[in-house]
């Protein structure tokens, strides 16, 4: 199976094959690796790549190898094409919450003209305030939240046009 692996903004193509004895051959650039894999309780994986013993846990894009965190995206190139063709393109002026939080303040009204970098909404979480700024100069088209409201990570907060 061909898999594209992205890390630190760089994408690599990796070929993984299962061999007859239940081991794995992995090709990456010009190198070839042989690996033995065993499942661990709670979703972990023990890999012996050569004789390097790796304890692997994966949650989303987070890959832990012997306790060390790597941010790595993996995708099947086939699936990726499918996804990209139908993907939703978010507007440049739309701002979403990077973390769950409470809307502490809404600093401007809908229809106001703002400059790029002007504060629009203040989110609060865990004793810390975070002012979200207009990503571009323009008009505040829509504010989707009101003061005191709590929002999830990824929630659309406001749009500038």
């Amino acid at each position, binding site marked *: 199976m061909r898999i594209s*692996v992205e890390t630190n903004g760089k994408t690599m193509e990796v070929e993984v094959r*299962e061999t007859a004895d239940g081991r*794995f051959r*992995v090709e990456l650039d010009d190198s070839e690796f042989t690996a033995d894999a065993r499942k661990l309780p709670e979703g972990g994986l023990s890999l012996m790549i050569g004789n390097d013993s790796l304890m*692997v*846990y994966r949650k989303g894009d987070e890959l832990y190898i012997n306790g060390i965190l790597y941010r790595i995206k993996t995708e099947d190139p086939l699936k990726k094409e499918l996804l990209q063709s139908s993907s939703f393109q978010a507007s440049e002026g739309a701002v979403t919450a990077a973390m769950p939080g409470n809307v502490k303040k809404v600093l401007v009204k809908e229809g106001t003209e703002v400059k790029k970098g002007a504060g629009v909404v203040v989110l609060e979480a*865990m004793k810390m305030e975070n002012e979200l700024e207009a990503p571009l100069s323009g008009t505040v088209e829509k504010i989707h939240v009101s003061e005191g409201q709590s929002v999830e990570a990824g929630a659309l907060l406001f749009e500038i046009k």
Partner: protein
Amino acid sequence: MFKKVLVANRGEIAVRVMRTLKEMGIRTVTVFSDPDRIALHTLFADEAYPLGGTTSADSYLKGDKIIEIARNSGAEAIHPGYGFLSENADFAELCRENGVVFIGPPASAIRQMGDKVTSREIMTAAGVPVVPGFDKPDMTEKDALGFAEKAGFPVMIKASAGGGGKGMRKVDKAEDLGKALRAARSEALSSFGDGHVYVEKFVEHPRHIEIQILADNYGNVLYLGERDCSIQRRHQKVIEEAPSPFVPPEMRKKMGETAVQAARAAGYRNAGTVEFLVDKNHNFYFLEMNTRLQVEHPVTEWITGLDLVAEQVRIAAGELISLKQQDVKLQGHAVECRIYAEDPDNNFMPSPGTIQLLRTPAGPGIRDDSGIYEGGEISLYYDPLLSKLTAYGPDRDSAIRRMCRALDEYIVAGIKTNIEFHHKVLNHPEFAAGDHDTTFVSRHLDELTVGNSREKSLAVVAAAIHYYLNNKPVINSGQAQKCSQWKHFQRSGWL
């Protein structure tokens, strides 16, 4: 001794305090907000009472309600932990009025030390060095200039009512003073409704070094060595150590004795911390006194062998401190890393969520004071401190290497943490040399936060195999196709 004590806090510190109470044979009572019904401290207590509410103001800050619960449950004393009600003089007083022992200093000491100007006055009167400064109603530009030229530039203009850097200006030379004074006054007025400012000598490249003290009701005041808390981000400590690599023995003694003087001047009782700013010439200046248990108290426990919470409880119960100054022996070196739910690569933004996977370090010289468990929720309503990891070794170098080993064992998935950030600080040559100050993190921010710099090709191979096993084409029976890929993987022959 008390039979039952209420812990008016949550998270790691509530659990840590209850551990000692259990060791002392004292029954533990705690309180919990609505989101904390299954938080670790609620589960850990012998008895737990609902406070209702979600925000801190609606729950853990409800002093009257907490005292009522203490009385109804039969708890004879309240341990406030740190934060929340721990430095609230009115709460301490209310406890006393209701016949409940507040495990901490008298309300008067909290009140005096809580006010910047008052505490500075008390310390000056007691001969404790404070940062040279000048304060006068309606201070003119000429007044300020007179002070600045005597003390030497740079100086700092600060709002009396200040906090969070507002109403604050650093002034490097005489010609900038007037403008800075006006700007600070105007900002102070608009931020706090009070335009009063004062001027202080600016301490360049300061280290934050603090002295742990213990004071009982019989006039005994002890100092337990210092902690160096110079690694800070956003004016908040992230790594602490004891002893400080910057403090020679004679300075340790002098700082310790000065801290005792400060505590006596404040009429202090129980455990407390006198914080100092230290300049590059080893001059130290009183910064403030924290009238409670510090977050970083475990590093002092490591090098003294004492249990500070047990000392707090004993002092509050009217007992003597368990030892004398000459019996305090500092041995070895300890480092603490505060494990926060935050993203160092994104301006240390908090990262609430569910702990999907948790592996905690153990073994020689490692202590993990945690308030979380696998599957638990990190609520956005409270402090993002997940755990305090401390490492001990015979010397600074071995303690640091032990900490690095433990950080590698520590896995918290599902939310972002500063574990990798800690690793980078500990491996930075400036930190390794003990040559850092409170500007360390901001000066090296780029080096400390750009992702993970370790070797990656095995990680790529591992990621690819993991993906393969979860997505490989199912070629067996129709039966298998109904299962998730992972289940299929579990059943297939290669395991």
